[in-house]
């Protein structure tokens, strides 16, 4: 009997969370939002870029973690293009090419921005830490073509980038421990701090490195919504904000009820 209750209870919980998520997506509520200090710091970091500055944009999440990072990746990509920064997209995770295709469509390359001049995609570089170290030391020694097979010497943007020191800003968007590899292979040997966006699960692992070794740190999907607010371009972050908040509230209620029930049961025993 109790197994049955547990089974159907789980289904009810899932259905309630599903409704809590679906309802605000279909009928946006517009819950109030406060921009956190970390988001503001990251925003200022990007906003202070000079026009023409070259940015390393590390597409490093696994496909499962991309959804959580998506709003932040889009908003920051749009901000970079708006600041006339030139972007080198590259990934140290094999999912990078698939994600790049979706991301560049989501960001929407502004009119006048040309591939090879304003942005490039170098594809997936294997080897994790070894790959990052080789990339940081000499990009042209590691790669001779971009992801689409165009020789790097034919891409004007890549003629201005030789190694990691030629970037004005280094960013990594990751769902695993890659940001720490960035710290070890870029921050330590070259004394260049990196800006990092991670999924919530990774926040406790990466946060201790901020702000001394990591210059910018965004750790939750809520920060994607905040960033959209700062750049005044509402997107999926703000659209998802209501759904996330209500779903978290439902879970919170279930956690409290579950614990109280368990306490009651323990007292009876």
């Amino acid at each position, binding site marked *: 009997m109790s197994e049955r209750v547990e089974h159907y209870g789980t289904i009810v919980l899932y259905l309630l969370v599903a409704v809590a998520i679906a309802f605000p997506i279909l009928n946006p509520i517009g819950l109030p939002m406060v921009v956190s200090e970390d988001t503001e710091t990251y925003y200022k970091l990007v906003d202070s870029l000079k026009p023409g500055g070259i940015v390393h944009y590390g597409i490093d999440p696994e496909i499962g973690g991309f959804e*959580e990072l998506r709003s932040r990746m889009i908003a920051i990509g749009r901000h970079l293009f708006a600041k006339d920064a030139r972007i080198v997209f590259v990934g140290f995770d*094999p999912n990078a090419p698939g994600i790049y295709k979706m991301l560049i469509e989501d960001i929407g390359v502004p009119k006048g921005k040309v591939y090879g001049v304003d942005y490039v995609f170098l*594809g997936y570089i294997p080897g994790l830490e070894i790959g990052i170290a080789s990339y940081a030391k000499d990009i042209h020694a590691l790669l001779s073509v971009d992801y689409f097979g165009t020789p790097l010497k034919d891409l004007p943007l890549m003629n201005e980038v030789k190694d990691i020191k030629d970037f004005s800003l280094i960013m990594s968007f990751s769902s695993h421990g890659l940001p720490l590899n960035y710290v*070890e292979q870029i921050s*330590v040997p070259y004394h260049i701090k990196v800006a990092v966006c991670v999924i919530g699960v990774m926040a406790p692992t990466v946060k*201790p490195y901020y702000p*001394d070794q990591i210059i910018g740190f965004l750790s939750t999907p809520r920060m994607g919504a905040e960033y959209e607010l700062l750049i005044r371009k509402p997107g999926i972050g703000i659209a998802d904000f209501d759904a996330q908040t209500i779903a978290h509230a439902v879970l919170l209620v279930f956690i409290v009820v579950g614990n109280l029930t368990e306490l009651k049961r323990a007292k009876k025993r």
Partner: protein
Amino acid sequence: MDVVALWISTALTIFTVSLIFKETPLYRFAQHVFMGSAMGYGIVMAVKAVSDIAWNPMTKGEAIWIIPFILGLMFYTKFSKKYFWVSRYPTAVLVSTGVALTMRAVVRSSFLAQISSTFLNPLAPPYVGSPQLVINNILVIVIVICTLSYFLFSGEKTWQRNPVMVLLRKAAIYFMMFAFGAGFASTVVSRIALWVGRTRYLLASEARSITSIIIIFTALVLVGQGPLERMWKRR
């Protein structure tokens, strides 16, 4: 093509979620499709990386790339009982390179720099102006000391039972519980974000009708599966 992709991704999402109710052939189908496509994607990416980074430059005269190629091929001797030992050489190269690269930085990044970032003077500028930063810095110092003391296993019994040590360890348990709680909450946030993303996709105007059709189809399979299985067993 976009419509076909929409149908496929909507169906696979709903088939996978059907596991909440019970395991169905639809769920197993989605699982196998995922495994197969993930493997296929991984292989294509690996081959492309080898081709772009090493093979093409090598064929154009950069002879140095022949060394990693030979080392890579040596890994395949793992499948031979007679020449298994050969695979130890590329493994050794890989491990030693990895360890050397990590060691040159990890002492600085994860040890020295972290210690100096942890033990900040809470009353020194620029912290002294901000009560929040002062409290944060004090908390970090106290929590690090307590947690480290929890993992001191050696020493005399009297030292281990010292009231100060006992107090530090008791405090450490609570601090670690807070940390585990925060970690768990972060995991929940991640999973909900994933769910929100998929729901947004399923409820997008162009996908709504497809979502409805596939939900009905999946529900029919869920309802009909039990009677069909019983019928099959009776036969």
